[in-house]
């Protein structure tokens, strides 16, 4: 598939602002348009990533953002795929561009989140596994993170200190990110002094919920050239995988895995398949990647991604972390933005925010958190109920 160009990116800083999500989305969209040096009137298509928390599902995100920018009859779509919503919205925009339906599109996502655990909407729904896992078991999101973290300790000898060191690393990166909610550098002692939320994971290792917004302006390569942009950061591949039956790994929001009683699980697991898809589509391999933004809902999950994206073999993630390979300055820096640990979840914005960060990295505009000579970057993300997502960028 042909590449598309990134013409501009923008974010509303993450925080706990308590204002209407439309405001964050509008700020991010205007910044992305300014960065692209384009007017809203020049956008042929707006692709919104939906939040379910802010009233009528994100006021059907695309149209509400279009209205805030000023209704002008532009084409619009809205996407919901939980945490993968942003990548889905980007993929919809890419489809419009590559089909020739439009030249340039604006992708935007924003959220205002409540305090505390993310939880299902009100009501009794005994046929909804997301409702059932809370009601019948008390299985919050961190419970699933804790199960996988403990399993990692059992399988590969990971320690609580390894998990804490992920947070230490990412907090060092976030110090230089004005869009991150938490810019504080944490030491190991800070993390071990924070309370356990779901054993073996502590409060500072589990991502919080935040308000925030992110936007990207994307176009065809020809359109970019017509603007005089000859060497843009390009999007070379997008993955939106479902798992493959039977998926043997327990994952939220399910009460049980698929059964492997009569079918052997695929050799490549669900999360591995997300990276595989973009590598294949872009015609590259994990050894070509210079920088990654991964979905670290918990610090332990970042270690899993090192292996799932092919940066190292199974069981080697802890050494990759400890030898500095995944820090800025190392072989394959991961989460130079500070990751979700420093941002918190603003669900429809976060997959777009990952693309913003990698755009800055590849355009050499990341300031003090710049990964030297970064040319290829990968994002990894996952939405509830089996929505994988990954975006591969290069320059």
């Amino acid at each position, binding site marked *: 598939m042909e590449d598309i160009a990134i013409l501009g990116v923008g974010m509303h800083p993450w925080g706990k602002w308590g204002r209407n999500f439309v405001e964050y989305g509008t700020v991010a969209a205007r910044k992305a348009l300014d960065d692209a040096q384009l007017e809203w009137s020049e956008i042929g298509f707006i692709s919104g990533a939906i939040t379910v928390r802010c009233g009528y599902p994100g006021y059907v995100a695309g149209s509400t953002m279009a209205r805030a920018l000023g209704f002008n009859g532009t084409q619009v779509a809205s996407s919901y795929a939980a945490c993968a919503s942003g990548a889905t919205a980007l993929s919809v925009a890419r489809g419009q561009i590559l089909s020739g339906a439009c030249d340039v599109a604006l992708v935007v996502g924003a959220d205002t989140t409540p305090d505390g655990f993310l939880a299902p909407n009100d009501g009794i729904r*005994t046929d909804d596994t997301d409702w059932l896992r809370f*009601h019948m078991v008390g299985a*919050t999101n961190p*419970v699933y993170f804790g199960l996988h973290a403990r399993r990692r300790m059992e399988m590969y000898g990971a320690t609580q200190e390894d998990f804490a060191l992920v947070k230490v690393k990412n907090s060092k990166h976030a110090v230089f990110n004005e869009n991150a909610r938490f810019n504080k550098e944490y030491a190991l002692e800070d993390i071990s002094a924070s309370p356990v*939320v*779901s054993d073996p994971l502590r409060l500072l290792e589990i991502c919080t919920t935040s308000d925030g917004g992110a936007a990207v302006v994307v176009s065809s390569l020809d359109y970019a050239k017509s603007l005089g942009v000859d060497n843009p950061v390009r999007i070379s591949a997008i993955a939106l995988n479902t798992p493959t039956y039977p998926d043997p790994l*327990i994952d939220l929001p399910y009460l*049980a895995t698929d059964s492997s009683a009569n*079918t052997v699980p695929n050799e490549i697991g669900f999360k591995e398949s997300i990276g595989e898809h973009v590598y294949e589509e872009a015609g590259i391999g994990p050894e070509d990647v210079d920088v990654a933004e991964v979905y670290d809902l918990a610090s332990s999950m970042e270690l899993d991604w090192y292996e799932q994206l092919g940066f190292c073999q199974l069981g080697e993630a802890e050494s990759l972390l400890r030898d500095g390979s995944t820090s800025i300055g190392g072989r394959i820096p991961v989460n130079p933005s500070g990751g979700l640990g420093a941002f918190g979840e603003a669900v429809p914005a976060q997959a777009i925010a990952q693309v913003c960060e990698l755009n800055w990295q590849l355009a050499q505009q990341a300031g003090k958190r710049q990964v030297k000579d970064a040319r290829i970057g990968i994002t990894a993300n996952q939405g509830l109920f089996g929505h994988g997502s990954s975006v591969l960028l290069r320059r």
Partner: protein
Amino acid sequence: MTKDTKIEVPAVEGFFTIEEETHLIGGRFKKSGSFCFPKSLGGSDPDFPEDEIEEVLLSRVGKIWSYTNSAYPPPPPFIAAEPYVPIVIAAVELEEEKMVIIGQVVNGYSVEDLSVGMPVEVKVGTLYEDSEYRYLTWMWKPLFEEQKQDKN
């Protein structure tokens, strides 16, 4: 379980049997031979289109695949006891069904008491109660070696 006049009912019908030798109620796909839990909410094998599901009782005993807890009370629709005692949760692998099922661990155990690979059996336990009813859910109970030998 303490005996009083409260009536014991499942918090949601159709997930487990209420008896001494309690079982989880799952589904078995007739053509593929694969299992699912709960019986009506499992994914299906794409190689066996329009496979029918029959209700089956799942194995009572499995091994801990992993475990954790919730140090803070989960939000609704969980109904947390007051004062809240951290719940312990295990993901348990059933050998015959080759699947992992999550559930609370019966009261009185902490994460320190558990280990990966530990045999457990399914029981019913109280999820919450009101003046009239005790609402039950499935829970995993560790089976220690001596008990295992007794059963053999």
